[in-house]
């Protein structure tokens, strides 16, 4: 894992303030842990993607979405 990409509990408080919300104290470490885990998982998944792989934003599932 690239540690530059790790969000800490302290940073959660700052990010939340910037987003205009409060993350409850009992959720700050869990929130940081989950965000890091999700981002690392998504990063691992897209690592081998060709740059042209687009988001499936149209969400038309008729075997022709996205790529």
């Amino acid at each position, binding site marked *: 894992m690239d540690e530059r990409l790790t969000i800490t509990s302290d940073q959660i408080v700052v990010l939340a303030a910037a987003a205009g*919300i*409060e993350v409850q104290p009992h959720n700050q470490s869990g929130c940081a842990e989950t*965000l890091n885990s999700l*981002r690392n998982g998504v990063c691992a998944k897209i690592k081998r993607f060709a740059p042209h792989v*687009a988001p499936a934003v149209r969400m038309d599932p008729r075997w022709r979405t*996205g790529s």
Partner: protein
Amino acid sequence: MSEMSPLHYLDIATAAERIRSGKLSSVALTEAILDRITAIDPIIRSYVTVTGKDAIQAAENADKRIRSGDYLGPLDGIPLAIKDLYDTAGIRTTSCSKVRENYVPTEDATSVAKLRAAGAVILGKVATHEFAFGFDAPPARNPWNTDHTPSGSSGGSGAALAAGLCLGATGSDTGGSIRAPAAANGISGIKPTYGRVSKHGVAVLSWTLDHAGPMARSARDLAILLQAMAGSDPLDPTTLDENVPDYVSALAGDIKGITIGVPRNYFFDMIEPSIETAVRGAIDELGKASSGITEVDIPGLEYLLESFFSIVTAEAATFHFEAFRETPHLYNDDVRQLLEQGNLTLATTYINAQRSRSVVIDGFRQAFQNIDVLVTPGLPVTAPRVGQTAYDWKTSDEPVFRAHARYNCPFNLAGLPAATVPCGFASDCLPVGLQIIGKPFQEVTVLRVADAFQRLTDWHNVHPRI
């Protein structure tokens, strides 16, 4: 369906035939269900609002209409329950949240309007997890064992069907919220293809993952309900203008020309052994009735849950943007924590998660090249106990949310039609579901296979002792 079945466990197809032929009135049926709600629902707690007076009025209208020769079809006079996420004109629609405690819509959701237009009688609103954001539906309990939840988020619908408190219901499914309670309560549910059923008037959890669909006690009943609900809607830009076939007529019972795919990877990982035994048995039954079983590998499923959770939390946080800033204290703590997390999801994480869907869809396209349907377990676990937060796999614990999403959310990410039907019981005597997945807009094939399975087995006619 036996001639001796009590009114509250009639399936829609049987009740409709009796109503059409004048052997049963909608009023008698509706009164029987309302009486059972009064007697049983204080234990099951599936309904959050019962509209008995309006239901009797609608049933009287149906009887009058049918007597005058103006029969609307198989939903005419049939009592249904509506998930409290769906707008119902003049009826409180809370999404089981204090945030919408006093919300009374002035119009029906498109699906509700279509069901009413088909003659359905609305009994009331059934429980959901708050804004459908979880695999539970407090305060509803599982009719097979009231120490357990009915799963969710359409758990009120699932529990009401299993307990004989309605003949059909609506559900919504973002990562398994129709199919998980179908498995957990031993009933049938279908998440149609993305774009097949309008979501207009259904509270949003995730615009790109949400699906609306029916729940019932048989595949045939799902076909009847889906017939009324399906179709494009100018009020919902995500619906697609695809032809809606005659689902009921397609249920011929014969699946000899259909090839059943069984996944080699992912869908039998971390599964309770007695559930795997029940599902493998069901697959054997289908193999004998069809063109046979083909094992398939499905590429692109790694890290899929991370993509799912990133999308659903970020989109939910966006839908709740204003309310969450104004009244965060009104949300229950579990949903509040998920919304806090969703508000802080990086844009790049969200977009990369959406990119990964293209690869998931492509993986299923490859897997479906030589098969007509894919079959998997509905859930790797049975319904959790009330208050249980994780499953113990001996080597690790797995949160309930993850365990219930794992086999279901791939088909929300890909938008494919998927039904779950009962196929037995696990070692803890709770129901087990079989999931049947089809190609895009092939609900008809999914329902044909589900119906054929229910002609070969009787699991859908086994009811809890209440």
